[in-house]
């Protein structure tokens, strides 16, 4: 069988298996294959919707909680409740937690470490039934409303690319990177 398979190479290789294995017909990988094409700035801009904690990616525009509350009532309250605590979907405002049994309340005001995440997430994924339909101004306003309802900013505070990354989130100090390691210790 070996004779059949290797016939193309055997002339040079003789019986040295090692030599045979290294002398396959596979080329060394090139630095680049040249498949695909360069992405244009325009097409990257259309896709690049992420916002980092340092504010990179935040668009121009601004909004405050007064305007945000109106949008919230119209576009969000059906799923998140009149004041953001009632549901049926995720609770968005800490509010009064004394009535909540068993499960710990984890929401923007007491669990989210970065305010920029509110903007990023609402712009990309909400409202759930019409994701990606909000204007940047609407997202700034909704972010302001949610941060204000959680007691983190004043009702009149204007949020924009500069002020949003500066909002201090109380839960940030609790976050620690994964400390589990390979080996026997249970963490």
């Amino acid at each position, binding site marked *: 069988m070996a004779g059949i398979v290797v016939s193309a190479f055997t002339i040079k290789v003789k019986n040295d298996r090692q030599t045979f294995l290294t002398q396959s017909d596979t080329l060394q990988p090139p630095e680049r294959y040249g498949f695909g094409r360069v992405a244009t700035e325009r097409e990257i801009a259309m896709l690049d919707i992420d916002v980092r*904690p340092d504010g990179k990616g935040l668009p121009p525009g601004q909004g405050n909680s007064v305007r945000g509350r109106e949008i919230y009532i119209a576009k969000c309250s059906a799923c998140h409740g009149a004041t953001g605590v009632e549901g049926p979907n995720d609770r968005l405002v800490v509010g009064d937690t004394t009535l909540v049994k068993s499960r710990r309340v984890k929401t923007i005001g007491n669990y989210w470490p970065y305010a920029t995440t509110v903007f990023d997430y609402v712009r990309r*994924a909400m409202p759930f039934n019409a*994701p990606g339909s909000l204007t940047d101004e609407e997202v700034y306003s909704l972010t302001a409303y949610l941060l204000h309802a959680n007691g983190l900013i004043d009702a009149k505070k204007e949020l924009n690319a500069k002020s949003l990354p500066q909002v201090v989130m109380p839960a940030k100090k609790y976050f620690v990177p994964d400390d589990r390691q390979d080996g026997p210790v249970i963490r």
Partner: protein
Amino acid sequence: MEIEKVNKISRRKLLGGAATAAVMLVQTASGKAVQAGFTHAELDDPTKVPGVLPGTLGSRSPFEKPVKAPSSTSSRTPLQDLYGTITPSDLHFERHHGGVPAIDPAQYKLTIHGMVQKPMVFTLADLKRFPSVTRVGFLECSGNYRGADDGKIRPQEICGLTSQSEWTGVSLSTLFREVGVSSKASWFLAEGGDSAVMTRSIPIKKGWDDAIIAYAQNGEAVRPEQGYPARLFLPGWEGNTNIKWIRRIEVSDQPFMTREETSKYTEPVADGKIRQFSFTMDARSIITYPSYPAQVEKGYIEIRGIAWSGRGKIVTVEISTNAGKSWNTAVLQEPVMDKSITAFRFLWKWDGSPTEIMSRAVDETGYVQPFLKQLLAARGGNMGYHFNPVTAWAIERDGRVLFRAT
């Protein structure tokens, strides 16, 4: 002509009852059978009728009905109904945050940009032109533990957000070289093309190590529920980071702190801390036979199950048949692969007295699967993501098998 007719009718016979069977026999060449006055039971003898001709697609026997267990956000693999280690693609668990998108492969694009020499766009055909890699690996959602006080819970509900496939695609490192990822880059953002536009930040090292942009699963195109036409596959890492329907990768020098790595997929641990970026899936195992709702009889029982670890290979699975008082070593079924599900078995003779059986996985780093109590103690009493406790099954005197928390 005659054969054609027989074949059509025998197809019907497979689905239908005795009436069609009788008609079929009258019309076949073997009219002899009918004249001989066979009983109904004999008519059902498959050696007495020609079978179905070759077809274009195979299908499961109508007698086999394994199904996933869906909720509004996920659907669980019926672990107790499966054999070996590969999950049939249509039974692979599902977890998505905005439904399964319909993506036309001809329109599909993967864009890689950010800290790269040359931002690039790859079509599906481009991805397939690159050298391909294939590996087996498990996928597991990190929110994959449930129990039940009355014990009436199947492996499917306990940890059915675990499945395994053979994945084929292009190494992400190949694409990283193609775009020229900067040596200063430390993270990348992976983004899906679903309605959640799912995003996770991944350390760049994982991208260079063993990440795959997978376009095939178990020998065919990736299933829509699994990210068709292409997904990120990160061996051993929590399910959510394996971004499905991947449309964009942005190379960066810091994480993006997306909702899925802050509000979700983080776990409260001891001292009021919240653990973040817990990527690796810890070692785990579960006995899938016998398990609820099976009922067993006295005598020989082959205890069977699966074990896996995101840190490497499984080296040992220990079995206790006396509620953890003593432990024996199970036989591991070859092949035992890196960051993959390994099947184990252990022959046991049950004497009929009530007891508890359980399995405990040990991986090549020396990690030993903990009991629930140990996990709770290590995490300040908090439950949450990355819960991989030993699962026990109580065997009742009457042979019923019920879940027990450990």
